[in-house]
């Protein structure tokens, strides 16, 4: 069984439990073992505006913790995935930076080696486990549903940093949805930001961005939104009501993690996918799915 260290990051591990629960339920069905480790901190990406060296140091220590166990890393949060990938790129290529990181990490008796690879859930499902293997486990296809996909800025850009998906028109989530039996039409607002990174400084405007994208999705008649970032989910799902107020719209868009959709298509009980924690009207999806499966 393939094993990965789960790097949970701050947002998933402190509030976005639906993502963690669903991926821990779904991945073992696909033959992947997820290992929890002690000692992690923030990846540093949310603090990049404060001090970029801090970001590098925090990411380096988190990678070092996984390397000590000899495990590759699953970072389900796109921000974490970017911070860890960028840090790895810098430390693997710049001996001076590596030396600086080494002296910081020595305080906790940690050492960066450069031996662990870093993956996102989309890599895992699409490329490593593979679409065929996912398809084999589908027992309740998500027929008749059409999702707007949202990847999260940090997963698609900057392409120079080797992101898991294409920067202008990512398609991997679309292909995953396809093997689950669901549709996913293109929409012009697809590459737009959820507004989340602005939340600490301009909360109102941040929610306006969220509301604008959700309204576009709603107006184009999608059954819901499928995503793979805990920050984006926090904006589009947890804060959907407030976001609607900022754009003067009554929003009713079911928002689900791709891992929750995979679980539903596998016929897994919604209670094991953390679906009670989605605050958007996901019952519509669950209801339709039960009919389709019946």
């Amino acid at each position: 069984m393939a094993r990965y260290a789960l790097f949970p990051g701050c947002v998933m591990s402190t509030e976005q439990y639906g993502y963690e629960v669903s991926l821990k339920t779904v991945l073992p069905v696909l033959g992947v073992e997820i290992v929890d480790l002690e000692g992690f901190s923030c990846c540093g990406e949310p603090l990049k505006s404060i001090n970029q060296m801090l970001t590098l140091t925090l990411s380096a220590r988190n990678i070092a913790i996984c390397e000590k166990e000899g495990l590759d890393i699953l970072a389900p949060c796109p921000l974490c995935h970017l911070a860890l990938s960028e840090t790895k790129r810098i430390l693997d290529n710049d001996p001076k930076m590596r030396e600086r990181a080494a002296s910081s990490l020595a305080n906790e008796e940690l050492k960066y080696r450069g031996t662990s690879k870093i993956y996102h859930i989309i890599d895992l499902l699409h490329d490593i486990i593979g679409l065929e293997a996912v398809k084999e486990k589908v027992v309740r296809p998500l027929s008749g549903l059409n999702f707007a996909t949202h990847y999260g800025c940090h997963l698609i850009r900057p392409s120079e940093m080797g992101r898991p998906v294409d920067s202008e028109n990512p398609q991997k989530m679309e292909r995953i949805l396809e093997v689950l039996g669901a549709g996913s039409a293109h929409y012009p607002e697809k590459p737009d930001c959820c507004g989340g990174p602005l939340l600490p400084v301009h909360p109102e405007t941040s929610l306006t961005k969220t509301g604008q994208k959700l309204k576009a999705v709603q107006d184009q008649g999608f059954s819901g939104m499928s995503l793979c970032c805990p920050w984006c989910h926090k904006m589009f799902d947890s804060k959907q009501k407030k976001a609607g107020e900022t754009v003067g719209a009554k929003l009713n868009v079911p928002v689900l993690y791709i891992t929750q959709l995979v679980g539903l298509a596998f016929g897994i009980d919604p209670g094991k996918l953390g679906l009670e924690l989605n605050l958007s009207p996901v019952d519509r999806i669950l209801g339709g799915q039960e009919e389709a499966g019946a």
Partner: protein
Amino acid sequence: MSVIDLNSMAEAQAADRQEINERLQRLREEVSDHCYQCGKCTSGCEAHKLLELEPHRIVALLKKGLIDELVNSDIIWTCMSCFKCKERCPQKVAPVNILFALKNLAVASGKQIPGDFTAMLQSAMEKGLIQDVQQVNTRAGETRTREQMGLSPCSKPEDPEKFQMTIMTVAMEKV
């Protein structure tokens, strides 16, 4: 040391200023050679319509060497770090990286850190994570903890004091 005084950290970071300045000078040389002010970065900028951020103007001001003005302006804090400007620039300039460097310099110069960034930083330095573990709501209006969701306790730095040492060496490092 359990509570970290952010002001003293800003002072300690004075040593960092020179490094960030050098980073900005390098960026300045790069943009001076490459940016031809086509405005493509601004036309796709996520913060442009709502907050009037104009990345091509940030680049132009840096080109002119107006770093102090930029560091003191609130506009640098409107960037959403969506990386579209970097992705779409035909000249491989990265306004987003210039903005990160400017914000870093503002902080290292002891300017007040805006909004919730202060709380996030404080929490990260004390507990390792930008926020505390939360009890969350269900759609039916009940509450759930990590434990109730069947999840193991949140992973955190095992020895907070040593962890703080790791971070403080960054903040106080002399380059």
